[in-house]
């Protein structure tokens, strides 16, 4: 061909004419492919997909027959539902007929297909997309022409295109191949029926505080039916990821994530599937938003915060301040109205400070900064800083070191008004408020702003209440024990919990950094004590020299210790007992493919709940025996260090903190998540109950 085009020796066949004749041939071939049934195909195929008709040999005159496109898909490859989910695409059918009227595509209900960080809605295996065909009056034959486009994915996706035609006679009866009829029945059963036929009623659809939507279904049978799977019709509104499911008597709440920024419509649709049948709820109106939090739960949290605030008064760094202030007021011989005014001023100081702290944290949160108490413990620097702080506090409580007393005296004796005392009380109390502030911080990072602020104010109200009460009531004031040696005893006693905290933090540091973590931490502690001793003991070369040396050693030790942390050290987390495997996605996928049950413990050394669950439940003899007899693959996903893969895996489960316990029943496509506070019976229930506590299995596609 090339020589024909370029060789002048073949003179007459001019290149232009040659090209034109080729073009004419190509066009006529293309035209005949469209126009002539001789080129028609009754199947289509592409990579990993074969499509054929699911149709009768003859159509019945004047009757409606449901036929379909039958997709045979290679194992592990998927085609999609009408809402394909986070990625992928639904197949497209452009079907035309001159001698029949055609109905819209009917989509069998899908399953959730987790693909890496995404969730798709599609079919695990073969599927038939169905539609109705009614021959027009007096039609002797039915002819159909369909242009198809589909997408087939495993992880990578391959689009496919094809054209199919169908030409069948019309007779008295529809005549089916038995196997094809059975196949069509199987998929027709899975096409969602009208919502009116469903035992479930869509009772409510409401916006959640975080922006998602909560769908509430009610079981009209009133039985103990398993919650069905629910699939949103609108992928532009709701994320495909499995909703959080909460059973509540004969009601089930489904909490869906909203696609970021999607506007709230008046109504949206869902398909509800119980594993065998499905029902379509086309327009569920969006009602009033769900209140910020269940009121009772918030009320309890605020009450707990208040109680925590009251306890803060007994903290050794707060109590002396308040006592000094209180006795100052009494000794000044102030009248009851004056004392009440002082009490109110003090309360205002406390509340304003707490409100300011709360606002600061909410502002940080709004700015996109991720606030989390536990998360910070992934940084060795922060952990070492906390070790140092708690060590100094413990030494101070033991009386080795006078630390912060000057600040306390200032707060106690200030003439600058009780308001300032209130402000100072919060700051002086700060070292003691660690656990309380941690919880409040935690709440602030998950609750909506109003509720988070309520918790902060609850803490403040609790801190302010006793002082205010004493100011208001002289009778109570008289009953107060005077400051005395008992306060020192209390303070010294409170040093011991702090020493224990230091040990725990050292252990966390050890988990983060390996053996060197222990070593660096402990050496720093000894260096601090040595510096203190040096500062007090030696005044040989004049007053202050020892103290100077002490300061110097303290500073050098601290700098060296923190610098040592920066040296790249990474300890592989050791796994006690070989039965627990480290997190390995491939191994988990392989086990699930083999129909082996999988239990994943998402944990971290700094997570106390995780450690409690591990010791009391997961590693108890009964539970380990159960795991062993059922050949469960045990995986410990250790999040002590920041691990992007585990973070991603948690994200797929809709979580971003530990503990999370994920249980995969053999063959299940979705894990079941166990409660954060584990009990042994929850594990045993997994094996008595056919492997599942609540959620309907979604994987029983034919």
């Amino acid at each position: 061909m090339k020589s024909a085009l370029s060789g002048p020796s073949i003179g007459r066949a001019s290149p232009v004419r040659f090209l034109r004749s080729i073009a004419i041939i190509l066009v006529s071939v293309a035209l005949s492919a469209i126009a002539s049934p001789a080129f028609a195909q009754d199947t289509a195929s592409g990579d990993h997909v074969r499509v054929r008709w699911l149709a009768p040999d003859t159509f019945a005159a004047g009757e409606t027959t449901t036929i379909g496109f039958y997709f045979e898909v290679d194992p592990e490859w998927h085609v999609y539902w009408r809402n394909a989910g986070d990625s992928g695409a639904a197949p497209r059918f452009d079907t035309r007929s001159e001698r029949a009227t055609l109905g819209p595509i009917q989509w069998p209900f899908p399953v959730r297909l987790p693909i890496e960080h995404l969730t798709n809605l599609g079919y695990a295996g073969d599927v038939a997309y169905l539609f109705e065909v009614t021959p027009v009056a007096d039609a002797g034959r039915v002819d159909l022409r369909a242009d198809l486009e589909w997408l087939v994915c495993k992880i990578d996706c391959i689009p496919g295109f094809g054209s199919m035609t169908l030409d069948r006679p019309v007779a008295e009866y529809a005549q089916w191949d038995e196997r094809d009829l059975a196949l069509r029945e199987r998929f027709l059963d899975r096409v969602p029926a009208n919502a009116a036929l469903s035992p479930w009623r869509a009772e409510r659809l409401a916006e959640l505080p975080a922006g998602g939507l909560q769908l509430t279904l009610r079981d009209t049978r009133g039985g103990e039916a398993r919650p069905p799977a629910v699939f949103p019709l609108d992928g532009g509104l709701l994320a495909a990821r499995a909703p959080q499911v909460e059973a509540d008597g004969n009601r089930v709440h489904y909490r869906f994530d909203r696609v970021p920024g999607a506007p709230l419509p008046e109504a949206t649709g869902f398909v509800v599937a119980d594993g065998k049948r499905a029902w379509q709820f086309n327009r569920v109106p969006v009602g009033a938003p769900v209140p910020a939090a269940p009121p009772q739960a918030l009320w309890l949290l605020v009450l707990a915060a208040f109680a925590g605030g009251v306890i803060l008064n007994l903290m050794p760094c707060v109590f002396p301040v308040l006592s000094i202030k209180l006795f100052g007021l009494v000794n000044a011989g102030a009248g009851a109205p004056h004392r009440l005014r002082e009490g109110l001023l003090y309360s205002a100081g406390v509340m304003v400070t707490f409100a300011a702290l709360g606002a600061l944290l909410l502002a940080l949160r709004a700015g996109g900064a991720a606030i989390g108490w536990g998360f910070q413990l992934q940084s060795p620097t922060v952990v070492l800083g906390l070790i140092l702080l708690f060590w100094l506090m413990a030494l101070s409580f033991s009386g080795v070191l006078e630390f912060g007393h000057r600040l306390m005296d200032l707060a106690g004796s200030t003439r600058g008004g009780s308001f300032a005392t209130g402000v100072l009380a919060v700051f002086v109390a700060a070292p003691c408020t660690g656990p309380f502030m941690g919880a409040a911080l935690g709440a602030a990072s998950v609750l909506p702003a109003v509720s988070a602020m309520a918790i902060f104010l609850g803490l403040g109200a609790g801190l302010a209440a006793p002082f205010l009460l004493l100011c208001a009531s002289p009778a109570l004031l008289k009953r107060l024990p005077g400051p005395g040696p008992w306060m020192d005893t209390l303070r010294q006693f409170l040093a011991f919990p702090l020493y224990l905290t230091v040990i725990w933090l050292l252990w966390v540091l050890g988990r983060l950094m390996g053996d060197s973590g222990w070593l660096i931490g402990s050496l720093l502690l000894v260096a601090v004590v040595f510096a203190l001793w040096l500062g007090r003991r030696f005044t040989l070369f004049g007053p202050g020299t020892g103290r100077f040396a002490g300061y110097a050693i303290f500073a050098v030790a601290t700098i060296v210790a923190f610098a040592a942390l920066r040296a790249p050290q990474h300890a592989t987390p050791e796994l006690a007992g070989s039965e627990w495997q480290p997190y390995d996605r491939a191994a988990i996928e392989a086990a699930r493919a083999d129909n082996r049950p999988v239990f994943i413990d998402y944990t971290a050394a700094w997570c106390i709940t995780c450690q409690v669950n591990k010791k009391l439940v997961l590693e108890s003899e009964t539970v380990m025996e159960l795991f062993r007899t059922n050949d469960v693959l045990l995986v410990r996903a250790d999040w002590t260090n920041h691990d992007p893969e585990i973070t991603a895996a948690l994200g797929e489960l809709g979580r971003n903190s530990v503990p999370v316990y994920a249980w995969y029943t053999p063959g299940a496509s979705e894990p079941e998540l166990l409660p954060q506070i584990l009990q042994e019976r929850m594990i045993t229930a997994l094996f008595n109950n056919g492997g599942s506590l609540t959620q309907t299995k979604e994987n029983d596609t034919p």
Partner: protein
Amino acid sequence: MNGKRIGGKTFGKALLSMFLAAPALALAVAVPGEKAPDFSEVDASGAKHSLADYKGEWLVIEWFNKDCPYVRKHYGSGNMQALQKKYTSEDIKWLTVISSARGKQGYLEPAAALEVAENHNLNASAPFVLDSDGSMGRAYGAKTTPHMFIINPEGEVVYAGAIDDNDSANPAVIPQSKNFVAAALDASMKGEGIEVASSRAYGCSVKY
């Protein structure tokens, strides 16, 4: 989430859980109407890009994977390059990001990325931004290629989602499709409000 209850909700438990709870973190993703997540990445030519660099400018961010059929739909047809050319000539900045991890489909070393930028006629404001650790992609919640984001001069996300309303892989549908990105940019340049600020991003999954 599990439906089973663990005993009654008591005051004690609430107090206990306040101490034990490991607080969850809010997942930061790019949400229309909110501040855009920060990023700091290096492009194929070695230049650094961060959100702060684009303060005061309109910025389009596009996720790319050379082997994805949907990316090929928009590059093979010249649609994406035409958009890049049109809007970068209007002083809008455009970054095309590859978040494929090393060893995953679509991952490119800087030299190879420069070559692909050349033979794809990439008209973005910089050669491909290489986010092989996925940090930028995850911060933005980039799910698919092509996933598109538009950030206004105040640093707020004004659009997140698909490039257009047709999730077919067939380039022939492009002329009939409604291009959300072009519509949002055109409306913004005229000082009008954006009609569609969010859509389901279609395409291939980002290969983190």
